[in-house]
């Protein structure tokens, strides 16, 4: 028996370890090479660095205008996600509690919109909000946030919709008897109960908004409003194949979200899992 147990355990462990090496190797490469000079990188990309010099990071932080870019990305992501959560929860709750043909039709329209590829919207977007309304020149960040709220709302309403159905109606009825208006009942009773779902929805939205490239590249034309992916694109164009600058820049760009993952990985994996089941 012990022999058999042993072999079945190694049957799982060996492929797991192999997959682990394959999945983490790019991160290893990124970290070790971010401390090397161009010569060292070309000579031996897999070797550990000969010395740990943080000077190159400081150089890259300055060249990327890192603090401003980080702030832009942070503001755009957090404001968008905040309003996605608030508005989607309000709408999903209303749709579940007040079914009507109009409500069902609106919900069906939102769900159906999820298969629209962004590419079939982007040209009219640029035309309407850029050429006609000039928002791309005058208010790029508010425009981008408004668009993210719109793009994020379909999936978020869908997930909230599934969850609201599981909340007992009696709780809300009790609050009405106690004298709450529908709005008070929503903000005092329902919204706090939606918290676990809100975490899930926040995670799903943060992941794509933080990393999005195509939409911001069309809307954010001026340098002072760049987000991190846009800045990285420009940086890559400027320092083509200059790996001693590019690699620390790549690492710095992905670092904020990796650090967030380090602290919240349990939540994040659970959140994605719950979002997927719905």
């Amino acid at each position, binding site marked *: 028996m012990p022999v058999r147990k042993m072999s079945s355990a190694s049957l*799982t462990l060996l492929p*797991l370890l192999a*997959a682990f090496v394959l999945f983490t190797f790019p991160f290893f*490469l990124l970290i070790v090479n971010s401390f090397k000079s161009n010569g060292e990188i070309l000579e031996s990309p897999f070797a550990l660095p000969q010395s740990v010099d943080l000077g190159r990071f400081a150089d890259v932080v300055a060249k990327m205008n890192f603090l401003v870019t980080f702030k832009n990305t942070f503001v755009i992501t957090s404001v968008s996600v905040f309003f996605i959560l608030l508005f989607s929860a309000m709408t999903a709750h*209303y749709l579940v509690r007040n079914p009507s043909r109009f409500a069902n039709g609106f919900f069906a329209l939102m769900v159906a919109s999820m*298969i629209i590829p962004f590419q079939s919207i982007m040209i009219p977007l*640029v035309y309407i909000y850029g050429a006609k309304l000039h928002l791309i020149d005058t208010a790029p960040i508010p425009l981008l946030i408004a668009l993210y709220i719109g793009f994020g709302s*379909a999936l978020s309403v869908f997930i909230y919709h599934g969850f609201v159905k599981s909340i007992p109606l009696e709780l809300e009825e009790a609050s009405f008897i106690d004298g709450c208006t529908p709005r008070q009942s929503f903000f005092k009773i329902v919204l706090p109960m939606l918290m676990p779902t809100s975490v899930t929805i926040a995670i799903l939205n943060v992941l794509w908004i933080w990393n999005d490239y195509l939409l911001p590249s069309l809307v954010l034309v001026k340098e002072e409003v760049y987000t991190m992916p846009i800045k*990285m694109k420009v940086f890559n164009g400027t320092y083509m194949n200059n790996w001693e600058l590019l690699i620390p820049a790549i690492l710095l760009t992905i670092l904020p979200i990796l650090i967030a993952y380090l602290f919240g990985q349990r939540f994040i994996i659970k959140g994605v899992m719950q979002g*997927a089941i719905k």
Partner: protein
Amino acid sequence: MTGKSRIHRLANQAFFMGPTALFFATAILIPFAYGFYLTLTSITSPVSPVEFAGFANYAKAFQDKQFWDSMWLTLKYVGGTIAFVNAIGFALAFLVTSGMRGQNFFRTAFFTPNLIGGLMLGYIWQFIFVQSLPSVGEKLGIEALRLGWLGDEALAFWALVIVTIWKSAGYMMIIFIAGLIAVPRDVIEASTIDGAGPWRRLTRITLPLMVPAFVVTVFLTLKDAFMVYDLNYSLTEGGPYGSTKMVSMHVVQKAFVETNYGLGQSEAILLFVIVAVVTGLQVYFSKKWEVQA
């Protein structure tokens, strides 16, 4: 119903649904509808006059060989990523639910690539394909690695597929884990008592019960693959010689680089129709496969 309560109801409806409806219309409905209108005009750039042109753009789109080449390439990419991402995602899920210690550690590691945006993925793997693998190939004398993959027309396509697997397999793994956990233990035990071996249990019990999870993962891989842009742009920029230019990149170039809004938009609408038909068929047929436990 009295007039006053009717007004109350409308006010509540506007309060709860208004913001979402407004932003949803701003970002999706209005541009989508306006997009159809643009395809019927001869507009080429934001400042050019809008003249009605009927279906001329669609006729041109059907004759645009580059568009159909990029569509065909995208379909190949869709097929390749669906097969590999789902197979590897399922295998990973199977391994990390076997009940051994440290499962959560592995789950965390396999999911990590999903934190990185498509653009950054492209840059990271550019370093691997351009700089790291050739140097290994050089030292060990492995010809396949010594070639720069991104400079070769066939290999560059597979480079894209590999990076997509690296990114997406961990996400699909998470969905499959949810599906695997939901497979009732008593069904598995009953089949074991009836004498089913591990392989039979997997193919006859677990996989059929996992169809709902596969409906979701195939849908997600399909949608992501049809819309791939960021990764394509940063890893290969469509090269070498346009051999990896996916349909999304073609549309972006048609509209914004070659400034042909009407034609680009018509091709984008064709893309929408193809995605809608393919995802519709996929969900319809895979729902038929579902079995009740």
